[in-house]
């Protein structure tokens, strides 16, 4: 092998390496810039977090004042915007009435789907069926099946529930 071909071979190897690097960077850039990919991820995150918050908002341990207070704090943590304001405003009265009633509710989301997602504004619409098991202070527990429509908003702390509507018969529109 002459120095000349060796020299050229070296350059060729370097060129191939540069190409490999370029292709890697291009592929990574494509993945990063893929709108539908980030859209899909936002959808799955919003759905998972929305389900979690909806279960929280349908649960409350009415055992004693302390637990009611914890439950109400969890409600505030799961909500944002108008719902958060509303819950914060009625918190004192809620704590009082819920402690007096002493019922315990446990919500479980049985099925949920997003019906809309706007990544630009950071909002999503969620529909879900929730089984709420209510155990009164005295007496047998019963399960209620509820269906909800929730508006989710993206906050610095993840997706949270901005508005919550029970979709009764008649559409609840």
């Amino acid at each position: 092998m002459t120095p000349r071909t060796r020299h050229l071979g070296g350059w060729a190897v370097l060129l191939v390496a540069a190409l490999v690097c370029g292709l890697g960077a291009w592929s990574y850039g494509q993945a990063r810039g893929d709108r539908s990919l980030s859209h899909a991820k936002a959808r799955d995150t919003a759905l998972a977090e929305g389900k979690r918050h909806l279960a929280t908002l349908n649960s409350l341990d009415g055992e004693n004042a302390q637990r009611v207070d914890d439950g109400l704090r969890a409600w505030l943590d799961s909500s944002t915007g108008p719902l958060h304001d509303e819950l914060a405003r009625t918190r004192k009265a809620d704590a009082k009435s819920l402690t007096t009633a002493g019922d315990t509710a446990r919500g479980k989301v049985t099925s949920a789907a997003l019906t809309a997602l706007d990544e630009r504004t950071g909002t999503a619409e969620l529909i879900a069926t929730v089984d709420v098991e209510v155990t009164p202070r005295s007496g047998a527990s019963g399960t209620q099946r509820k269906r909800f429509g929730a508006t989710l908003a993206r906050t610095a702390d993840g997706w949270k529930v901005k508005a919550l509507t029970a979709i009764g018969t008649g559409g609840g529109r």
Partner: protein
Amino acid sequence: MSASGATTTVSSDAALDPEAEEARTGTPDPEVGADVSRRRWPRVLGALLTVALIATGGALYAEGRQLRDTPATANLALTDAEATTRVTGDVSSALSKVFSYGPGATAGTRAAAERVLAGKALQQYATLFGQVERQSADQKLTLTTEVVRAGVTRLTDDSAHLLVFLDQVYERRGRTPTTASAQLTVTAELRDGRWWIVEIGST
């Protein structure tokens, strides 16, 4: 890359190659040695650069793959807005058709069902509808079903899962209508360019 050929036959090429000369003499002339090391450092640098470039390219590619390779991307719900709207529309209209009937008009409903239901859903429906036909005729019962909300939970090129909220109005002649709400999970498949409901479940 060997200089062994050059060590046995002294060709003009080998004579010009400083490395070959080094291999032959064993003890390089200091001047030639300095020349060799000066000639060698770009080569070492080139090798390092090559390795660095390949490693970076590989790492970026792997990172990109990881970003892309999630179950999230396999699900087209909402990311393919057009397909999502289409399957929601098809399934909603199918459900309101097959769950709406009036006395004497059950044949039309049955025919409609055969155009939108397939597989397990059609079997379930046929079993159920036998009773419904009798009831509807006996009690002058009219059922109107309206889809109030529908969301796609999973969507691929040819299959979909949906959650559908329905309102059903029962009317018996001479009585006030009653409304009931129902929630269904629906599995649909795309066949011949149309979405067919293949399975209906309750949530």
